[in-house]
């Protein structure tokens, strides 16, 4: 989509909002930009390939990969630089997983052209071997930097990060996972060693931003949005991180009203988003870039009230 057309559409969109609403969209694009990235994301889809059954329950008719595909296709027709990401717990929750062990889930994600995913605790529900077997059906990378997979069959299949190049933009994507002890039975994740996700994520993010000169660093996290106690969460990771721009979270099934904006250790803006579970929602964050030196960085970002759109 070119800039002119976008502004025109934004203006039309702004005209539709009620008088009481501030036209944030116009504000967001009222800045010079030369590159745009459209990030789409899901988390905790939990084998929900079909919509929830029409049985009168609260979620009836919601979700389903056919509708998700339709939405993503229409966005890709509008946007040329789309990243589609998942924050883990792809598996478990419908009979599809009980009987087909994750095969259709991985096939669907490949057909939807996911660019990267991280793994959640439930992705180990059929053990390491069960995950490895289904990864053969995935044609996108799996990222995690705080599990040590050495000596396990996942060693060669997982990577700490991946780099996507999009029309001159360089996007670094890393992944972090939750402590497996007490969450995943030992025999299902044997020999995977958990390391502090904050230390690991900062190390990789520094590498991506400084050494690899990535323009934007995204962390796919299955840590969970927040906890009552001091357990490490996306909120804590965000505060203690340095080179991460955006955390796409999962695990706690949190449906954030809006992207959570907080400050990192350098007092710069960092964003966290999570969109519930079961594929009932798809999150979208558009980032507008301009070619400037990193030293000119000002955390000038505008959060927009969320529009709910039905696919």
């Amino acid at each position, binding site marked *: 989509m070119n800039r002119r057309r976008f502004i025109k559409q934004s203006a039309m969109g702004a005209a539709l909002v009620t008088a009481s609403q501030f036209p944030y969209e116009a504000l*967001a*694009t*009222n*800045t*010079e930009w*030369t590159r745009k990235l459209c990030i789409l994301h899901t988390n905790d889809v939990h*084998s929900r*390939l*079909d*919509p929830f*059954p029409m*049985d009168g*329950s*609260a*979620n009836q*008719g*919601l979700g*389903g990969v*056919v*509708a998700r595909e339709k*939405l993503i296709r229409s966005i890709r027709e509008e946007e040329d630089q789309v990243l589609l990401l998942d924050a883990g717990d792809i598996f*478990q*929750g*419908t*009979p*599809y997983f009980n*009987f087909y062990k994750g095969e*259709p889930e991985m096939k669907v994600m490949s*057909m*939807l052209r996911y660019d990267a995913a991280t793994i959640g605790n439930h992705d180990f529900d059929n053990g390491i071997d069960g995950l490895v077997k289904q990864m053969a059906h995935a044609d996108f990378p799996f990222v995690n930097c705080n599990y040590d997979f050495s000596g396990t069959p996942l060693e060669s299949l997982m990577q700490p990060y991946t780099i996507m190049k999009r029309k*001159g933009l360089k996007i670094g994507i890393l992944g972090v996972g939750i402590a497996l002890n*007490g*969450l995943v*039975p030992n025999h299902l994740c044997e020999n995977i060693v958990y390391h502090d996700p904050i230390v690991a994520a900062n190390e990789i993010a520094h590498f991506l931003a400084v050494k690899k000169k990535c*323009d*934007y660093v995204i962390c796919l996290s299955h840590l969970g949005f927040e906890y009552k106690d001091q357990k490490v969460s996306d909120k804590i990771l965000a505060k203690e991180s340095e080179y991460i721009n955006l955390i796409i979270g999962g695990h706690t099934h949190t449906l954030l009203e*809006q*992207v959570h904006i907080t400050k990192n250790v350098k007092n710069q803006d960092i*964003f966290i988003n999570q*969109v519930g579970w079961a594929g*009932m*929602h798809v*999150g*979208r*964050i*558009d*980032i507008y*870039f*301009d070619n*400037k*030196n*990193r030293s*000119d960085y000002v955390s000038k*970002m505008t959060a927009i009230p*969320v*529009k*709910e*759109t*039905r*696919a």
Partner: protein
Amino acid sequence: MKFYPHLLGFLFLWLTACKTAYIPVSQHQEKYKIESGIDSSSAIERMLKPYRDSLSSRMNEVIGTASDHFVKQKPSGSLGNLVSDAMLTAARKTDPACMGAVCNYGGIRIPQLSAGPVTVGRVFEMLPFDNELVLLKLPGSTLRQWCKLMAKAEGWPIAGFSFNYRDSVALSIRFDGQPFDIQDTATYTIVTNDYIANGGDQCSFLQPLSKIPLNILVRDAMLNDIRKRKTINPDLQERIHKIP
């Protein structure tokens, strides 16, 4: 001054190889709610259909009727009561002395079971994990510790016993409705799932205990229970009660 054409060439290459840096200058967010029917023409639908069709014949079987809605909630709810009751019923077939059942809150994966026909598929969604029933013989001190954990978690599905709690402390434990004085050194038999028995969901204190596997999935115990009862009625008893 000497002219170094090769040096200039190198400089030119180095400059052009240097990537343009971009920084984010603004952002925009949206959220899409996914809702629609099945589009039979989509490639994904064609890929999925054979999987779904072979599941359907099994999953669409109606095994009973729910007379009303069952709800998953804390500290107690009718859906948790339904599951834990089925666990206790199954365990008592092997060991009639089994005193109670404990299921972790996260073990039940649907927020509610609607009134009307109950299908095999719905029970799979309710209890998707392939966890098996396990009998635990635990000392009173461990049972107390477990109740404390359940109080801290603000309630888990239980059957056969009940208790009140205040500020994460379990009080006045009752078995079969009767006040019960748990002796620290006495042994009590409780049925749970192997995920918790092996230390899952903060239950590492259960790990060292000896376990008697019942070789039946929690889900199969639930399916059997509904098949046998035909009609299931919500039990609204608040088995774990919070004292403000």
